[in-house]
């Protein structure tokens, strides 16, 4: 029963991302949104955590939140997939359940 985890805090602002990643199994997805998208930038604290995550866990970042924060696609970790709002809706249907980490 695959889980889509959503994280809306930056890795520096709390434990949401770290705790989410500890609790995610292969086949899960992690969608970064709001301040959560800062973790998708290569070189930061969040990216360090994301680099250690099993390749069987998909990492997504919400396009509108990246754009609002001036984070260009070229700045992202290679494994991060950008999704728009429609893609967000599709993900919530593709996974069996959603758990928000805030």
């Amino acid at each position: 029963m695959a889980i889509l985890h959503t994280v809306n805090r930056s890795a520096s602002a709390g434990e949401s991302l770290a705790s989410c990643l500890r609790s995610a199994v292969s086949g899960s997805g992690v969608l970064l949104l709001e301040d959560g998208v800062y973790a998708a930038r290569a070189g930061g604290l969040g990216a360090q955590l994301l680099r250690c995550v099993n390749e069987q866990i998909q990492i997504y970042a919400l396009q509108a939140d990246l754009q609002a924060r001036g984070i260009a696609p070229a700045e992202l970790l290679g494994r991060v997939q950008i999704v728009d709002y429609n893609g967000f809706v599709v993900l919530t249907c593709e996974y069996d359940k959603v758990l928000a980490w805030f």
Partner: protein
Amino acid sequence: MNEDATTVVRTITFVTRHAPHGSVFAQEALEVVLLGAAFEQRVRLVFMDDGLFQIKKGQDTVALGVKNFARAFNALPMYELDRIVVERESMQARGLEVGDLAIEVEVLDAADIACMLDDSDVLLGF
């Protein structure tokens, strides 16, 4: 499905991660947990991160002038929750031991909690 909708029992796992008195998250989580249990769902409660402080012994909010909602945790046995779990990594990061906690809990590693989440029908984070 020939089962009546009111009799469907789902496994609902609550993940509560915020300290008790700094925000309303912990109190709201407890209210929904009790509601879920009252409707005879299979309810599991997981304490992670600062959520562990919700069940720390010795909390007294008299000087704050607010109701100590944490005392309601003592009523949990009456609600017959399926499991009450704390994450070992969160315990260690806070220097907490089982003896510091006001209620009886299972201590599980993050990996086991991950399986528990996977195995649930509904997840609610607080």
